[in-house]
């Protein structure tokens, strides 16, 4: 029978070890989501542009990023970026760049599917009123596409939050690292990892409930 000693779990634990890691994980998730959606939308528009000069690079980038395990991309960026810019780079910054680049590929596919889920007739109507390609995208298609894609977006954010634990590979101080160090210092690895799992679960579960509420609010009645 496991004997679990949770006496060490107090506010001191949280502030000394966990808070810093938690903030990093949250920050990384938010930055990667915003950056990923921004670049992902650009990539999606490139893929749908009908111009080979834009389509091929975008498709190549998206397919490559989606074919390599995230942990490998994290390691590669950490090793390659210093070589490219000539000086060493911190694990935090490297992780941030990596995640934005990686998430852009996944969001590109989500946004592309979202754009294609908006009926073509909407674009015809916008064009018939004299709107340009840019106005149509900005005012008619993308607002509807994003509303349609919110459930998938939120799933991606939840997965992203869990994936931030992979920065373990380059030693960045995220939530999981915080638990690990605490476990080593207090000599209670089992309890801390169990708490880590529960913490991740609570956060991700709450996010999925929030997602459902948002989706109900902005759903478009056709």
């Amino acid at each position, binding site marked *: 029978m496991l004997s679990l000693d949770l006496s060490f779990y107090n506010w001191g634990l949280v502030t000394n070890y966990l808070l810093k890691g938690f903030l990093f994980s949250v920050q990384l998730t938010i930055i990667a989501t915003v950056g990923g959606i921004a670049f992902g939308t650009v990539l999606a528009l490139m893929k749908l542009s009908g111009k080979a000069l834009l389509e091929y690079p975008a498709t190549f980038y998206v397919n490559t990023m989606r074919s390599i395990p995230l942990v490998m991309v994290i390691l590669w960026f950490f090793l390659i970026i210093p070589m490219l810019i000539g000086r060493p780079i911190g694990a935090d910054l490297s992780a941030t760049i990596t995640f934005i680049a990686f998430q852009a590929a996944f969001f590109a596919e989500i946004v592309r599917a979202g754009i294609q889920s908006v*009926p073509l*007739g*909407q674009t*015809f*109507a*916008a*064009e*018939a*009123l*004299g*709107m*340009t390609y840019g*106005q149509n995208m900005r*005012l*008619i298609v993308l*607002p*509807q596409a994003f*509303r349609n894609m919110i459930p998938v977006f939120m799933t991606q954010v939840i997965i992203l939050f869990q994936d931030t634990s992979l920065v373990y590979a380059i030693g960045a101080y995220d939530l999981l690292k915080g638990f690990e160090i605490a476990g080593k210092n207090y000599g209670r690895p089992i309890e801390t990892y169990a708490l880590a799992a529960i913490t991740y679960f609570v956060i991700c579960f709450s996010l999925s409930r929030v997602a459902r509420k948002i989706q109900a609010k902005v759903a*478009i*009645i*056709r």
Partner: protein
Amino acid sequence: MIELKNVSKWYGSFQVLTDCSVSITKGEVMVICGPSGSGKSTLIKTINALEPFQAGEIVVDGINLHDPKTDLPKLRARIGMVFQQFELFPHLSVTENLTLAQMKVLGRPIDEAKAHGLKYLDRVGLIAQKDKFPGQLSGGQQQRVAIARALSMDPIVMLFDEPTSALDPEMVGEVLDVMVGLANDGTTMCCVTHEMGFARKVSDQVIFMDQGQIIENCSKEEFFGESSKRSHRVQDFLSKILAH
């Protein structure tokens, strides 16, 4: 005002329009009818360049569509179009649907756009729905809002692509009433429709299409009145449709 000369269109190797020539003068109401797949919708969509065409020439109010200098969005803003599936913007309210293009394309200030749009909304009888969303309206109401939206841009011609084909029979009447009103006010109109009663009432010219070609292009009186002089295909079509 609108001239189509020998317009032909291909989808890949399949020819959907063959040598179509049409002429619409100001204030005229033209009806295009024919069986499904005859290219009627495709033809009307070439008029405002929603569908490209490969051969022939289309001139709208003196502007040639194939001229590389033509500003197509600007031209489209002067041509109103009403679609079979209404195509209101579902994420915007009725008022926003009416004002969006006026503000963004024509650059009108919001108050002017609103007043203008609501004037046409009232004309189609739906001023009470101005704050509703398209999803809350019936099909007939949505189509009337779509007509008001197109009219708010003060177009030189109104194009209708089977405006009542997706409606419940009970709602067809309310939309046709609006269209008859427009015709009586002297609006230049081109309608693709199956509603022969409407055609008989307000049209000036009737065009019959089959398999991408214009089989018949004559006045309303000739089309309905002297139908024995029309081609067999047309007589066949009329006998089937008018039997109801």
